[in-house]
C-alpha cells in the first residue's frame, strides 16, 4: 500500500498544534478551475493527525533555528523498553518562502547515536515537477533507498517511485500514483505497485477516492492488498474527530480506530485521545508552558488485551 517514510520530527500538525494558518483545504476553488489534489501520501493525513502518537519513556527535544534556512534539533530519549538514544536532526531549506509547508523543498538528515542515518532530499526542480530521495540505514546497513518523481498538473498529480533498486540481486519495487480532481470535492485515483525479486514478481492495484466538504473529509483506498477507509470531521474550532478502518489481506486482520483532538488555546493545551478495536486506549496531552518556549507532553497507552501500559513524558524546547 505504498511506502511509509516516517521522519521522527517531520514538520506537520503534530509538532505545531497552534499554527496560525487555517488547515489546508482541498475544497477551495481557484479561478473556477479544479484544484490540484495534492500527493497520494497525504490522502489520509488529516485523519491520521488527529490520533495521538505513541509515546514512551522520557524524551527531550531541543529545537534551534540557526537561520531562516537552517534548523537543528537534538533529541534525547530515555526508554524502559527500547535502548535509549540521542538523535541529531538537521534541516536545510531550499528557500525560506515556505515556513511551515510540509512539502517544502529541503534537505533533511537525521543521525542516531547507534549510527542509523535517515536522509531525505526534497527538491522542486520545476514549478510542477518535484523529486524526492530517501536513504535509511539501520546502523551500517542500508534499509531503504528510494527515488520519487512527482508531476503536479492543474487538476491532477502523477508520481513514480523506484524503491530499493538492487541490480546484483535483481530486485526492485516500482510504485506509480495517479490522482485526479473529478469535481470540486471529489478526487479519484489509483496506485500500482510492482515488486520484483529473484524468485517472484507481482503487481498490486489499489483504487483511491476522497470526498471533501468544508467540515469533513472521507477517504477510501481499496485493492487486492486490503482496504483503508478514513473519515475526518471538524466539529467546531476546538474539536476534531477521526475514524479509521484498516483491513489487510496479507495479515488477515482488520482494525477500527476512533480518535479525537481537543484544542484549548486559552489554556495552551491540546489533548488527543484514541480507542482501538485491538483494545488499545491512549491519550496524549500537550501543554505549552508560556512564557517559556517549552512544551510539555504527557501520554499513556493501555493495551487491555495484553495488559500492558506505556507511559511517556516529553519536553520540547524551542
Amino acid at each position, binding site marked *: 500500500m505504498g511506502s511509509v517514510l516516517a521522519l521522527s520530527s517531520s514538520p506537520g500538525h503534530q509538532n505545531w498544534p497552534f499554527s496560525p494558518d487555517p488547515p489546508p483545504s482541498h475544497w477551495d476553488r481557484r479561478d473556477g478551475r479544479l484544484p490540484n489534489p495534492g500527493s497520494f501520501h497525504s490522502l489520509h493525513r488529516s485523519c491520521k493527525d488527529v490520533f495521538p502518537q505513541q509515546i514512551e519513556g*522520557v524524551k527531550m527535544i531541543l529545537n534551534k533555528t540557526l537561520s531562516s534556512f537552517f534548523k537543528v534539533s537534538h533529541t534525547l530519549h530515555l526508554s*524502559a523498553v527500547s535502548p*535509549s538514544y540521542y538523535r541529531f536532526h538537521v534541516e536545510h531549506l531550499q528557500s525560506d518562502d515556505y515556513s511551515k509547508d510540509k512539502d517544502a523543498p529541503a534537505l533533511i538528515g537525521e543521525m542516531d547515536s547507534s549510527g542509523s542515518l535517515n536522509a531525505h532530499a526534497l527538491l522542486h526542480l520545476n514549478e510542477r515537477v518535484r523529486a524526492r530521495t530517501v536513504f535509511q540505514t539501520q546502523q551500517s546497513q542500508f534499509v531503504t533507498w528510494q527515488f520519487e518523481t512527482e508531476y503536479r498538473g492543474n487538476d491532477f498529480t502523477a508520481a513514480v517511485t523506484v524503491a530499493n533498486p538492487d541490480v546484483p540481486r535483481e530486485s526492485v519495487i516500482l510504485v506509480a500514483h495517479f490522482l485526479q480532481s473529478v469535481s470540486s470535492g471529489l478526487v479519484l485515483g489509483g496506485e500500482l505497485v510492482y515488486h520484483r525479486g529473484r524468485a517472484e514478481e507481482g503487481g498490486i492495484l489499489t483504487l483511491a477516492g476522497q470526498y471533501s466538504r468544508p467540515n469533513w473529509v472521507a477517504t477510501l483506498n481499496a485493492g487486492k492488498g486490503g482496504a483503508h477507509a478514513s473519515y475526518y470531521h471538524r466539529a467546531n474550532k476546538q474539536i476534531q474527530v477521526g475514524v479509521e478502518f484498516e483491513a489487510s489481506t496479507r495479515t488477515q486482520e482488520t482494525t477500527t480506530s476512533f480518535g479525537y483532538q481537543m484544542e484549548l488555546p486559552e489554556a495552551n493545551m491540546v489533548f488527543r485521545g484514541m480507542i482501538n478495536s485491538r483494545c488499545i486506549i491512549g491519550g496524549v496531552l500537550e501543554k505549552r508552558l508560556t512564557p517559556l518556549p517549552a512544551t510539555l507532553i504527557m501520554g499513556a497507552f493501555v493495551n487491555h488485551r495484553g495488559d500492558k*501500559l*506505556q*507511559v511517556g*513524558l516529553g519536553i520540547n524546547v524551542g
Partner: protein
Amino acid sequence: HVKIIYTLRLSVSCVFNVDSQLTLSHPLTSPSRMGSVLAASSPNPPPPTSGGAASGLTVPPGFGMPPVIPSSGEASGQEQEDDSRLPNPGTFDECHRKCKEVFPMQMEGVRLFVNKGLSNHFQVNHTLLLSTTGDSTYRFGATYVGTKQMGPAEFFPVMVGDIDNSGSLNAQIIHQIANGVRSKLAFQTQQQKFVNWQCDAEFKGEDYTATVTIGNPDVLVGSGIVVTHYLQSITPALALGGELVYHSRPGEEGTVMSLAGRYTGSNYIATLTLGSAGAHASYYHKANEQLQVGVELEASTRMQDTSVSFGYQLDVPKANLLFKGSVDSNWVVGATLEKKLLPLPLSLVLCTFLNHQKNKFQCGFGVTIG
C-alpha cells in the same frame, strides 16, 4: 572479633544507664545463627506520619503524631526558658526521618489519588495505580479521627484502614491511653493471610521516650518478636538511645541490639545508628528557606554492602513547585517534580529514576485530587 565489639558497646551503654538485662553476652558464634538473627530482625512498624500515599499505611498530616520536636528554634527556645528542662527527643523511629523525607520517592506508571474529607472526623481516599511492570491496583482507604483532643492538631483515637482490589488489608489503630502513654495496634494481610500483627506502647516522659512493641505473637507456634526502643535527651541538642530486638521461634532465638545518637544543630541534624545488623548514618541540612540537603550512609552486615545517597529538595512556593533529586552510589539517579495546579485542588507529580549500572529506566506520573 565479634566479642571485642560487644565489650566496647557494653562500656558505652553503661554511661546512660540502659537496662542491664540486655543480653550482650548472648553467644553469636555460628555464622548460620548470625544470619538467622539478622534476617529475623523485623522491620519497624510503619510510621504513622508519612506524607503522600505510600504503599504502606499513611496518616494524613494533622491526624497523627506530632513531628520530631528538637528543631533549631524550639531547642534554643527551651534553653532560654529553662536550662534544667530538656525537650522530649521524639521517637526512635523518627531519628532518620528528616533526612529520608528529602529523598524522592520512586514511582512508576500512572497514579490517580483522590482524597475526600467527608467530615471533621472522617476522610476517605481512592488510589488507582496503572503499573507498567506489575499489576494495576485499586486501593480504598479510610481514616477516622476520634474526639479526644490531646493537642492543637491531635485527636485520638486514630483509625486508618486500607484495602486493595486483591483483598490485602492494612489497618492501624492509634490511641492515647493515658497522659504520656500512647498505644498502637497494626494489622497487615496479603490477600487473606495475615502477615503482620503487632501491638505497641509508647511512654513519653519529659526528656525520654520508651517504646515496647510486640510483633507477630503466635501462641500456637510459640514465636514472636519483641522490640524495645529507648531514646534519652542528654543535652538540648544531643539525644542518645538504643534498640533491642528479641525474636523467638521454636528451635532458635536471638537478639539484635543497636545504639543511636542524634545531634541537632542550628540548621542541621546528624544521626547515627550502629548495631550488629549494620550502621546507618544520616545528615540533614537546611541551607535556606528553599533548599534542604540530605546525605545518608547505609551499611548492612547481612547483605555485606554499603550505599551512600545524596538528596536535595528544592521548594519554590511562588511557583507551587517542589523538586526532589537524588544520586546514589548504586548509580541510581532520580528526580521527582510536584506541582500544584491552582486554582484546581489538583497536584501533578512527575517522577523518573535511572539506574545506570543496570541500564534500567523508570518513569511515572500521578495526579492527586483533593
